């Protein structure tokens, strides 16, 4: 920290502080530059080519393309299937992320309190995250299977269902069913993030509150939660982006059906490119999705600028 002569003019004090702040910010740049350069090298060409392709007409009967202006964007934004897929994706993302956060927080609080077998229990709770998406999708396909699946077996034996139903063929239940699979798969990531956050909370602060007679609930909401605010925001952003861009689970389990009720936007883009051979349209849809996610990320990350309690 730079100590300035407080008798100096205020504008000089401000300028010196700003320079110090920038020096501090740029100090870490050499350490991240290698990774940044690799990312730029690997991602820049596909990224820029996708944007280029979004302005080109790509007829299926030829490999030649020609400039099409905003035609692809117009087609995509007027396509009811695309708009439906956006709606499904928003539902999917909100549903998955909210429950990821809630379940992840609950699991983190539970694991944090454990004194025995914390490691094995934490590892067991992480298993869904470690299992590959394809394996998880096929496993849950069998769990949901009407005649042989465990879920139908349990629900019928408990009297919840009169006879087995095919959840993945239901217009009402197909989307919640695949969202559940996604939550199962991704909540452990939230758990690990929150667990790390919980373990970074100063113990003295918590103990002091408890000594002053604060209940566990009050300690959580008024001490721990404010400390976890940044972690919650970062985890929410990461999980929102991750869930929004999911592809595998609906692709394998339902192919987006029945009747596009589980077709999320990544499935739409894939089908548009590789089934409909409309690469320009698929690229335009990708750019639209990128813009949506960028707006979201900017708004969310902006809230990181608020100070945490107790931090100077």
């Amino acid at each position: 920290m730079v100590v300035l002569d407080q008798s100096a003019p205020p504008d000089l004090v401000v300028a010196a502080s700003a320079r110090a702040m920038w020096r501090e910010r740029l100090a870490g740049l050499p350490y991240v530059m290698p990774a940044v350069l690799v990312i730029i090298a690997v991602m820049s060409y596909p990224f820029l080519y996708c944007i280029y392709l979004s302005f080109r007409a790509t007829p299926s009967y030829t490999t030649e393309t020609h400039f099409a202006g905003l035609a692809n964007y117009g087609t995509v934004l007027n396509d009811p299937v695309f708009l439906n897929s956006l709606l499904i994706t928003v539902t999917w993302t909100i549903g998955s992320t909210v429950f990821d956060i809630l379940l992840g927080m609950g699991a983190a609080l539970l694991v944090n309190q454990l004194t025995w077998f914390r490691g094995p229990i934490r590892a067991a709770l992480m298993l869904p995250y470690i299992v590959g998406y394809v394996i998880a999708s096929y496993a849950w396909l069998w769990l949901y299977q009407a005649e042989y699946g465990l879920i139908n077996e349990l629900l019928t034996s408990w009297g919840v269902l009169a006879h087995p139903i095919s959840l993945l063929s239901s217009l009402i239940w197909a989307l919640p069913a695949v969202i559940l699979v996604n939550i199962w798969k991704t909540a452990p990531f939230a758990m690990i993030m929150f667990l790390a956050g919980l373990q970074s909370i100063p113990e003295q602060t918590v103990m002091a509150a408890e000594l002053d007679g604060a209940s566990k609930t009050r300690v959580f909401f008024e001490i721990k939660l404010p400390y976890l605010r940044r972690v919650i925001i970062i985890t929410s952003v990461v999980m929102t982006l991750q869930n929004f861009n999911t592809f595998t689970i609906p692709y394998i389990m339902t192919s987006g059906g029945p009747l596009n009720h589980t077709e999320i936007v990544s499935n739409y883009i894939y089908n548009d490119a590789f089934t409909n051979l409309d690469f320009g349209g698929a690229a335009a849809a990708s750019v639209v999705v990128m813009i949506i996610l960028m707006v979201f990320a900017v708004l969310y990350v902006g809230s990181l600028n608020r100070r945490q309690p107790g931090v100077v």
Partner: protein
Amino acid sequence: MAEAGYTRRQALKAAGFGAAGLAAGRVFTSRGFAANPAAASISGSLEAWDWSDAPSVPGEQAQAEFYTKYFPSLYKNLQFRSTIFGYTDLLPKLTVAWRAGNLPDIARCAIQWSPQFVGAGQCAEITEEELGMPFSQFIPGALLSDRRNGASEGALYGIPSNNEVMFLLYNKSLFSKAGIDPNKPPATWADLVAYSKTIHDKTGAYGFGLCAQQTNGNTSYRFMPVAWACGGQIFDELSPKPTWRKVGLGGDGVVQALSLYHQMFNVDKSVQPSALSDNESDCETLFLDEKMAMVIDHPSFPQQVKQLKPDLDMGGAMLPIGPVRRAVVLGGSNFHIRATTKNKPAALALMKAYLAPYWNVRLGTGAGSEASTEAARASPEQATASKEMPFNDIVFQMLPYGVNVPLVTQGAQIWNTIIPAMIQQVLSGRSTPKEAATAAASQVTRMIAA
């Protein structure tokens, strides 16, 4: 060849000059199949892509042996590389690779993928002289997918590697339990619907396996034979020389087929409730478990049933006839050589080796399919293979009823997306058969007009 594990006798047999064949006086002439080019004439490099015949173990074994042992042993001067992809993985990879003018030099594509590559000028023309055998060796209908715009005549830009049709497989025990003569499979589609209801009502098992998953080609593979049998069509594929211009999807035949589906799923409820999310895996599982009486399936499935459930009393039949005709999808695969390949002779050599009767039979029937050439189908190898494949005689009987998938560049979209969506509209109760067929027809009309 000895180093590659092939003795001279094995190599001769593999090339089709089997001792038994010679002893029987059946010498394969150049009109039957093409002789392999001399080893010295083939050099350079060649990259081949194919799709896996999994889960058929004999098919996978044959494929691995052909690509890793046999063909490399023929041409030591050739730098040969082959990659086998999953069935659903190859199409997107090939689509991108060939649009970029990139590898492979030769690929084997499912028949419904061919129009997009042939139509976009990405495939090299192949002549009879280059192939070394007359095109009359192949089923005429199978060659349409190798011509631009699915034309009945003209230059070929691919060669069929195998043909495949489906047939009706049924459980004789369930037939008996339902009071139906197990030796009298349904003759018409209306009979099939009635049988399905009877079997479900009397035994509790599902009468028929319905596949109606969205964005899945298997859905159309099972629906279109019903539609064609009722006189419906997507374009004019039922005519002797289809033009692929006039959209026929909204016609009465398609509506009638949709009505049959509606009857089974919504009214009789005699089919499995997971039809809207089933691409055939539930059907096969239920059939194996004897909870489903009738399925339409590939020739490879009864082989699996024989292995997994040998005591299941299976019956096989041709697909039922409709008011207009009997029909089945003419499936299979084509070899295509990339138009910009630098080693067409090597690619042709691969094709010739694959099409030799021994390999054509082994690779075809091993995958639950059929050889693509007449010489192969008439060979002693085929006679031996047919004895081991249940109901292969029925499959051969179905071949003449084969009808082509839409041979337009938008064919995959029509087959995999529009037709399944049309069926789902009806099965979910969102549309009547007429409404769904009309909407699908409008969609196809707009698509091909664009």
